[in-house]
């Protein structure tokens, strides 16, 4: 009976928490704009087949290097102009978001999983296991990333899947290091000691007591890493080792547009703008997430907000008679 009583008010309570979070996000303007832009880009990527006016690979030799609509010679058929093969730039930007976000999300997930497992094992086991795993991390970190990428691409051949594998292999170390350091400090926390004294097995201690402490720092790290992956993907595709035509990505478009930079600046500008906007808005949003998931930071942010200043006004403002 007690169970039913306690589970009843659960749903409205969760809704209230969600509502509170939304209003908190609304009050942090930078974070809100960041969130909005990410949501728009994600929606754009998901809905690409329906909202893109043309097939991104469709060539049209009759309409090569058309400028955007607001320039002389531009027209409404190609709002952001066309490239050297007459492909619609707007459609390419919309489709490019797809592969960029797909690669970014998959790499964060895969590299994150590898890194978290290595970090957990190293941090919990300690001793020799820790030493060996952390030396592997050190070696991987000091190994030039671009060399690794060239090596793997030459074996597997360039493709989107290769991109994901390559970037996962070169980006998991940061998770391992961070997770290990958190695990080492959480192991000293009294409730973890209590758990081991009461006879919990290591697996239970890791999953019930240590892992939940990793969620918020990993969330922030993952979001920030996402921007790194977007930039890395762009760089590798720019070198011609990443996404291959007829598929498209922002990095690839920037690369192929560079020959025309003086006669058709829009080829390189719009996909470049896509990268900048994504990275910037993710950073803005990640900052909000970091503050909101840390109770202390959250209280501090509140303290410096206007609402707090209204609550406590120094005596002299109220014209107290001394």
């Amino acid at each position, binding site marked *: 009976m007690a169970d039913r009583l306690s589970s009843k008010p659960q749903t409205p309570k969760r809704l209230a928490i969600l509502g509170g979070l939304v209003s908190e996000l609304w009050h942090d303007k930078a974070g809100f704009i960041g969130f909005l832009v990410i949501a728009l880009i994600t929606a754009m990527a998901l809905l690409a087949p329906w909202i893109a006016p043309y097939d991104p690979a469709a060539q049209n030799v009759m309409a090569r290097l058309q400028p955007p609509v607001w320039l002389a010679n531009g027209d409404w058929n190609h709002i952001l102009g066309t490239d050297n093969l007459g492909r619609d730039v707007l459609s390419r930007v919309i489709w490019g978001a797809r592969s960029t976000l797909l690669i970014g999300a998959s790499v964060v997930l895969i590299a994150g999983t590898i890194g978290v497992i290595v970090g957990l094992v190293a941090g919990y086991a300690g001793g020799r296991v820790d030493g060996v795993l952390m030396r592997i991390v050190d070696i991987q970190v000091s190994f030039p990333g671009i060399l690794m990428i060239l090596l793997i691409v030459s074996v597997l051949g360039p493709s989107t899947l290769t991109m994901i594998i390559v970037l996962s292999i070169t980006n998991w170390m940061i998770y391992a290091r961070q997770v290990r350091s958190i695990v080492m400090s959480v192991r000293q926390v009294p409730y973890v000691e209590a758990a081991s004294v009461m006879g919990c097995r290591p697996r239970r201690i890791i999953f019930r007591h240590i892992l939940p402490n990793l969620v918020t720092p990993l969330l922030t790290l993952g979001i920030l890493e996402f921007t790194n992956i977007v930039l890395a993907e762009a760089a590798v595709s720019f070198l011609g080792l990443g996404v291959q035509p007829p598929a498209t990505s922002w990095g690839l478009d920037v690369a192929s547009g560079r020959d025309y930079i003086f006669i058709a600046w829009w080829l390189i500008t719009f996909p470049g703008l896509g990268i900048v906007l994504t990275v910037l808005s993710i950073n803005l949003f990640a900052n909000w997430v970091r503050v909101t998931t840390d109770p202390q930071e*959250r*209280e501090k942010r*509140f*303290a*410096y907000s206007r*609402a*707090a*200043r209204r*609550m*406590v*006004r*120094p*005596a*002299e403002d*109220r014209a*107290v008679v*001394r």
Partner: protein
Amino acid sequence: MSAQTAPLLEVDGLRVDFASRAGLVQAINEVSLVVHKGETLGLVGESGSGKSVSAQAVMGLISPPGAITGGDVRWCGTSLLGRKGERYARSVRGKNIAMIFQDPMTSLNPLMTVGDQIGEAMRYHLGFTHVQARRRAEELLGAVGLSAPARRLDQYPHELSGGMRQRVMIAMAISCEPELLIADEPTTALDVTIQAQILELLARLQKELGLAIILITHDLGVVAGICNRVAVMYAGRIVETGDVDTIFEDPGHPYTQGLLRSTPSLEGTEDTLMSIDGIPPRLIDPQPGCPFLPRCPIGVDACRQAPPAEAWKGSAVRCWKAGADAWSMGATRAQEAGL
């Protein structure tokens, strides 16, 4: 202490609020204190009672989200608050009023030698040269009972033990010859035998330098040893002020009585300790009336209104039933309940 001499420090109806996401926290409310030259005032209370916040307000250490929202703090009759007061306060704090804290490790700069840290305030407030400051620092370290003071000058805080660090803090605090020393739980982080040494040092300095001391502590035993007067705080208010002997022998407020009864003594052989049931109230949106009412064994309807300061055997007691023996009835009730 005679009331004729003008008090050094007057805290008058002070109120400090903290804004938090959960609501407005009234950290202290209507706190009034007077400290005379050369006396030791004990400020006693449990965690969250507002004893540290009161000291921070005097030292100008309240920063957002907190703010002083009422009352006044006066040094020798001149206010330290407000725009004009701030300027005056800067010349008073650190020079005339000094403060030491609970954890000497976090209040010492780990990257500066002991000698430089002690000398810093003297160079700022008294215009000492480096050489003068160093010579004076050595004297001070000797005065607070550190062995080999000349050698200590060039050591860093991490090379010293907790007790030695607290001695360094005290040396820093008395370097500008203050008239008032505020000691916020100065011995809580120390071992019992070291605590006794530090308390003896404070008592000796007070006698030698004519210092006034505000000693903030949760330990009634510490208060009994070196204080002349005591102010007991509960939930952000001062519930009782008076002479140390009166308060310990004839406490007028039910909370003070309960606190004394639940303090374990070395002599006591009774097996069960007396305790105060319940927990201190939250300071967010406090109820009007006496904050101790939910835990008070002799609470009546009148207690829902804020009690006035009643005089009781020379103490000022904020209770409608000041002086009533609160716990004899309560104890029988607990015995009947089979505790």
